[in-house]
């Protein structure tokens, strides 16, 4: 009988732990809030993962790893139409284009990338079908789950921390007026440069991620490191006028034109200056 349940009740870590300890063979189907994944196991070891929206055609995996170009992928599609990954791998290895270890390393990294994404899913459903292994023609590997669970848990914590630090990707960023680190001392990665090139109070973090084809974890990591380095600052969105009930707009507020790029200004409380002075006098006397 298939194991079924909700991720809210039984999380990925617990599921993988169960599969590992029980040395299960079969496929775990996971439906998250916007994606689905299928994770295949043989005797408690992870052998294959696929996910909706992620092309797992071997040449595309190798293109993402920087081994192939788009032209290579197009050429293989044209010359080996409909061939399964295992056949493509054989040709690549026997023709000397790629060593077997290199190919397996990239497939393994691809599988791990996907499984670590699944770790961040905390809502959805799962179903484990014993003995079902839909991996015909695919390149499989054999990954011990202990390390996956440990690394996944570590990444989950990191994900939670980053989500806490940057809860809203709809906010924008701007360059710090006075960076804490001298610019000449900064070494940025290619990805960081790609993000930096889009820093503008008009671009939200989510838009920057979309422009650069980055997932939420990647963009959060980069933005967090840029914030920590003091290179960029968050531009808080203009506040809704309905929110501060007790601080009615003054005449000057009404006349002011909104500046979408300006940071929200502190607003004085709706009391007269004399009241503040009376408060100060009294507290000094206490």
């Amino acid at each position, binding site marked *: 009988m298939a194991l079924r349940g909700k991720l809210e009740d039984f999380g990925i870590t617990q599921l993988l732990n169960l599969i590992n300890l029980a040395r299960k063979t079969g496929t775990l189907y996971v439906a998250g809030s916007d994606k689905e994944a299928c994770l295949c196991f043989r005797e408690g070891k992870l052998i294959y993962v696929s996910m909706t929206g992620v092309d797992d055609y071997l040449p595309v995996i190798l293109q993402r790893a920087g081994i192939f170009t788009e032209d290579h992928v197009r050429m293989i599609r044209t010359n080996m139409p409909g061939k399964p990954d295992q056949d493509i791998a054989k040709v690549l290895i026997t023709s000397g284009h790629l060593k077997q270890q290199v190919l397996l390393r990239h497939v393994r990294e691809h599988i791990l990338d996907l499984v670590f994404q699944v770790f961040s899913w905390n809502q959805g459903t799962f179903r484990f079908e014993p003995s079902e292994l839909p991996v015909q023609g695919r390149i499989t590997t054999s990954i011990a789950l202990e390390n996956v669970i440990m690394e996944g848990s570590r990444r989950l914590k990191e994900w939670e921390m980053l989500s*806490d*630090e940057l809860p809203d990707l709809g906010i924008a960023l701007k360059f710090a007026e006075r960076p804490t680190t001298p610019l000449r001392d900064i070494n940025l990665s290619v990805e960081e440069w790609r993000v930096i090139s889009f820093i503008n109070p008009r671009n939200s973090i989510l838009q920057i991620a979309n422009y650069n084809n980055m997932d939420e974890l990647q963009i959060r990591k980069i933005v967090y490191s840029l914030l920590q380095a003091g290179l960029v600052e968050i531009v*808080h969105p203009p*506040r809704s006028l309905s*929110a*501060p*009930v*007790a*601080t009615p707009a003054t005449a*000057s507020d009404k006349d002011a034109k909104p500046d979408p790029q300006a940071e*929200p*200004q*502190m*607003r*004085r*409380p709706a*009391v007269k*200056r004399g*009241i*503040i*002075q*009376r*408060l*100060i006098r*009294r*507290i*000094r006397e*206490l």
Partner: protein
Amino acid sequence: MQTVKMIVTGPFSAGKTELIQSISEIDVVSTERKITRESERIKDQTTVAMDFGRITIDEDLILYLFGTPGQKRFDFMWEVLSEGMLGFVVMVDSTRPETFREARRILDTFRSYSPVPSIVAANKQDLDDAWPAEDLRIVLRVEPGVKVVPCVASDRESVKKVLLELLYSILELMDAE
């Protein structure tokens, strides 16, 4: 009779109740309950609704001090408490770095409720392992315009200084307009 209010907020066990108790002319109306969660057993009691202190300014003006519950699960009350505040104090236990991130979240949250002046009170500065106020400014990413004041919540003079600095910030804002 006119009343005005200030909010004292901050993470769990930052010293909010103690600050209000040090300055209030009435016994603080405090809704404290025994702590049942092991993870929160740093002190025996905590505020589950709010603290309420009062300072009579003169015959027709009263300042109320409201302390918010520090535990995250009561944060639904914050917005209600913040309505109409003159300004707010974010208390931080300077000896507990594990609460600094929460303090920053609270600072941002209260700002989003109402952009009135605020101040950070770096509490427990009398303890050896207290982080200096200026270090707290950096880790909490407090902007230059917001004061970070060293504080000992049990010391009335220190509490007076915190409240006065907040009032000075309000005056400075009024002068700038």
